[in-house]
């Protein structure tokens, strides 16, 4: 029997610029926030293996632009929705998605892409029930993690090799400012430490 609206699960988005912070927050969020729904799932970046495969297999062709990277992120998100998020929600479970929409949109805006294009690109993804902004560590630096750790780390590694004027510290600062703005307009809440 399909679940009724009351039984439908909840989608919680965690947004931030560093995979380390997102992972830490995800571990905390899952059991603590929803103890009655401890069986809930998580949906982590690159569940489809798209970015991992690209990094492993075709480094010499790894010259995508920010727009191409976002198209690939959207395809991975479509995979996550189809195989992880929607089945769990339909079964009445809570799913924590890290990252979800806001981080990718912040990356796109910080790279100079239009708000309208980004909104249209992610139109297929349902809005989360709750969106949390994770606490950012090492705010004044770029990304130090491995490219396969997270979306922003991957983009930083790729763009630093291909775009002559790319500066990871500036990009991360711009992404953080955009996530701050989404917090101010209450699209995301600050996740308590």
């Amino acid at each position, binding site marked *: 029997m399909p679940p009724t609206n009351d039984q439908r699960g909840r989608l919680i988005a965690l947004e931030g610029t560093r995979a380390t912070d997102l992972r830490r927050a995800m571990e905390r969020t899952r059991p603590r926030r929803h103890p009655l729904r401890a069986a809930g799932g998580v949906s982590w970046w690159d569940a489809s293996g798209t970015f991992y495969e690209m990094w492993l297999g075709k480094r010499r062709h790894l010259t995508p632009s920010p727009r*191409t990277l976002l198209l690939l992120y959207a395809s991975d998100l*479509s995979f996550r929705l189809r195989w992880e998020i929607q089945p769990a929600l339909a079964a009445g479970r809570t799913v924590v998605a890290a990252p979800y929409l806001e981080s990718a949109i912040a990356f796109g805006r910080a790279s100079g892409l239009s708000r309208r*294009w980004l909104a249209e690109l992610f139109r297929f993804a349902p809005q989360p029930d709750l969106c949390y902004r994770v606490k950012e560590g090492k705010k004044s630096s770029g990304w130090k993690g491995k490219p396969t750790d997270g979306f922003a780390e991957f983009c930083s590694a790729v763009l630093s090799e291909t775009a002559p004027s790319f500066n990871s510290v500036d990009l991360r600062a711009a992404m953080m400012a955009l996530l701050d703005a989404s917090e101010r307009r209450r699209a995301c809440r600050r996740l308590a430490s």
Partner: protein
Amino acid sequence: MTRQPARARKPSLSKEVLDLLHKREATRGLLIAFEGPDGAGKTTQRKLFRRWLEGQGHTVTTTKWASSPLVRPLIKARKRARALGAEELCLLQAADFRHRLEQDVLPALWRGRTVLADQYLFTGLSRDAARGLDFDWMLHVYGPLFWPDIVFYFPISLDIAAQRVASKRSPKYYEAGQDVTNVADPLSSFRQFQARVMREYENLALVFQFLTIDGEQPIYEQHKRIRKLFLEGSRRVWGEWNAEALAEWLTLGVGRQEVKHASHE
């Protein structure tokens, strides 16, 4: 060439970029797309036309659908596993398209080479629309659009398409649209799916004013018509049609290098 479809919205661009595009207009290459359903004979005509163009002194680059070394292996592996949803397939193909546009097509055009696209974005639009995706969303996904100078369209009947494809091999799972038709027999599914694709192509041909080549005519007759239409044709002025896509490319690594390279020539 042709009457032109409604003009693309002209974005507000810096004078510097518009000047650069204006200066390049005279020496840039032409982008010519070959579109039509599977089995229409696009590749045969593209090869013949390439030879003829080279004989006329053009330097020619060819780009094929879903062929970028970055994304092709991903699409291939996922197709083999039959693991792709309609949206995911559309987005991967759009990523492939964007990557080829930025890395291969635009640099070649900028250097004055003629680019032949064996299937262009209209292939993605017609197939994805046949899979039930929203047309407006797809146009955004492929945006900012880069319009070819000429689109040759090869309509054929469903029977001929099925006959030509089946004479070589059984249609593949996604080619036959089995992901959306749920029909077990590949050829029956191909017929169902291609009927939808052809309907979408007909709409696109009307809206975007493709140059139609009857794909059921003898091969040489088609080739002669392509030559004739090409010689009568005119280009789409970059500054009016493709300014937004080019402005973005010019700010990227590859585009910048091209401009630098050109200024040293």
